């Protein structure tokens, strides 16, 4: 067990180094040097050389990599080309909004998909199951931005309660308006983005839950539980569900990067002030420092998340023994 954890940890370090190399390479596949972004035709050759030396672009590629990696380890992600602010501050300021949206989505998805998946599996090939399967195909095929635009036009613009841009009404605070007013205000802004992300992402988790449940209820121990005369509801909820849930819980690790990816589109449509909107703006303004930092941080978080999930799995599933 200790051996497995150690091996898994070394693997984690290797992945983080790999991620840093890929991130670094992307910066260098851009045609021309990054300096071209900071200079124009009026810049003299001496100035260019000075900037090159300042950023270390006159050094060899491996030297540049180690210099850059050293800065990253110390938490120096550089400053934005556009605003001059430290990149890390910009990302951290926007992260809570994205996390709020994604965690709420995750809760909605799991709260809905687990019971739907169970019923669908227990009543396999019933009209309910067919409806769920059909929905799963719709949800997986529907472009998020299209659904968002449809909802925006056919729902958002018709019901004044529903807000279509932003995250909260300016000036609304708990201190001034009370908790209830504050929450209702938040909900007005959350409804549409949550509806869109949940609708499209619910589909795959529901399918996994259904498949996982189907597999478990055909196992011997479930048959045994039935044979000794336990009522159906007890068999399903006590004996089958626990085991069927295991693979679904680990899916959270895979679902998070998908949700994060989706946040670029959703946040641009609803002007949600999170990291998705930030990166889109950064791309549009060619502010590469910001988006590179986000790529690096995002990928590193995913790898760390997977590591934590694996460790949790060790605790949750006693059947797994690693040599």
């Amino acid at each position, binding site marked *: 067990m200790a051996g497995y954890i150690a091996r898994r940890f070394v*693997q984690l370090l*290797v*992945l983080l180094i*790999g*991620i840093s190399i*890929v991130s670094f390479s*992307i*910066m260098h*596949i*851009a*045609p021309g040097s990054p300096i071209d972004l900071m200079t124009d035709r009026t810049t003299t050759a001496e100035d260019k050389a000075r900037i090159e030396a300042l950023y270390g672009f006159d050094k060899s590629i491996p030297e540049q990599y180690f210099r850059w990696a050293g800065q990253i380890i110390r938490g120096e992600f550089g400053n934005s080309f556009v605003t001059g602010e430290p990149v890390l501050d910009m990302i951290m300021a926007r992260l809570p909004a994205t996390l709020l949206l994604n965690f709420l989505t995750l809760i909605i998805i799991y709260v809905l998909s687990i019971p739907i998946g169970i019923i669908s599996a227990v009543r396999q090939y019933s009209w309910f199951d067919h409806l769920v399967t059909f929905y799963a*195909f*719709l949800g*997986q*095929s*529907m*472009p*998020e*931005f*299209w659904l968002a*635009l*449809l909802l*925006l*036009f056919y729902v958002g*613009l018709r019901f004044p309660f529903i807000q279509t841009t932003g995250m909260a009404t300016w000036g609304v605070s708990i201190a001034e308006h009370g908790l209830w007013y504050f929450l209702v205000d938040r909900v007005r802004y959350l409804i549409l983005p949550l509806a869109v992300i949940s609708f499209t992402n619910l589909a795959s988790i529901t399918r996994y839950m259904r498949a996982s449940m189907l597999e478990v209820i055909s196992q011997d121990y479930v048959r045994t539980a039935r044979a000794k005369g336990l009522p159906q509801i007890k068999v399903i909820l006590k004996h089958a569900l626990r085991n069927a849930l295991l693979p679904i819980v680990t899916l959270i690790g895979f679902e998070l*990067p998908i949700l*994060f*990816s*989706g946040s*670029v*589109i959703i946040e*641009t449509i609803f002007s949600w002030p999170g990291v998705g909107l930030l*990166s*889109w703006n950064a*791309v*549009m303004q*060619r502010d*590469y420092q910001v*988006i*590179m930092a*986000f*790529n690096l941080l*995002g*990928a*590193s978080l*995913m*790898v760390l998340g*997977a590591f934590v999930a694996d460790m949790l799995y060790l605790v949750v599933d006693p059947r797994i023994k690693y040599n």
Partner: protein
Amino acid sequence: MKPNVTPGGTPHVALMPKEETYGRMVWRRFRRHKLAVVSLFVLLLLYGMAIFAPIVAPYHYDHMDFTKSLHPPSFTSWFGTDRIGGDIFSRVVWGSRISLAVGLVAAGIALVIGTIIGALAGYFGGIIDDILMRFTEVVASFPTMFLLLTVIAVLPRSTMNIMIVIGATAWPGLARMVRGQFLSLREMDYVEAARAVGATDTSIVFTHILLNTMAPIIVNASLRIGGAILVESGLSFLGLGVISPPSWGTILNGGRPLLRSAPWISTIPGLFIFVTVLAFNYVGDGLRDALDPRATR
């Protein structure tokens, strides 16, 4: 093959059961999945429309006519017109060329990379497996849309670049699947037998293992085409696509500022994206049932 002979001695060719080829078997099983058949038909129509775009579309995609600005759908312009009087139907027909081609090419690139990496890792194992799988995990750990945004923003804007970049990020799942197949198949008796009679690594990989992995690879690829179309339309929607010739995502993005006054500009290309991806998913589902000999339906 010896002709079937009745006790009387006369050959009865007609009584001989016709040997069913693999292709026929697959088609027979595929046909049972009604939605998959309908989807295949829809896809053939769409690809036909893309190929014959110059004949099907009444106007060129760059056509403009300021006297017909923002007409709603009617008999003369089926899907309405945009601000500069461009015919949305014609633009959607031309747009199908880009969207459908991006799907095919990007999925093709992912297919080649994923199969090669998965096959090498699964067949050789050991240190090669370790290196390739860590590389796969690194690529898979980047949030796709952010990675795509960065790369597309950095590279010169062209449909070809978009295809390559989508393909280059879409292969990790496939590589894992192929690796798993190779890991289990290389231990099979028949592979051992082939090795015993002196088959080379190359011939074992290609004729003995890869052929037996084709079914899941094909299913995965068909799902990936739909996925690539979604990703491309997403990028175009974010304004990172190629403006002319337009893809469905580009047309949709163009209609966003006019959503209130001319909702058809955005709604219709979106419907095409949705139906196409749905069709690919159903065809993939049908193929899974048809190609998997263990599946019983």
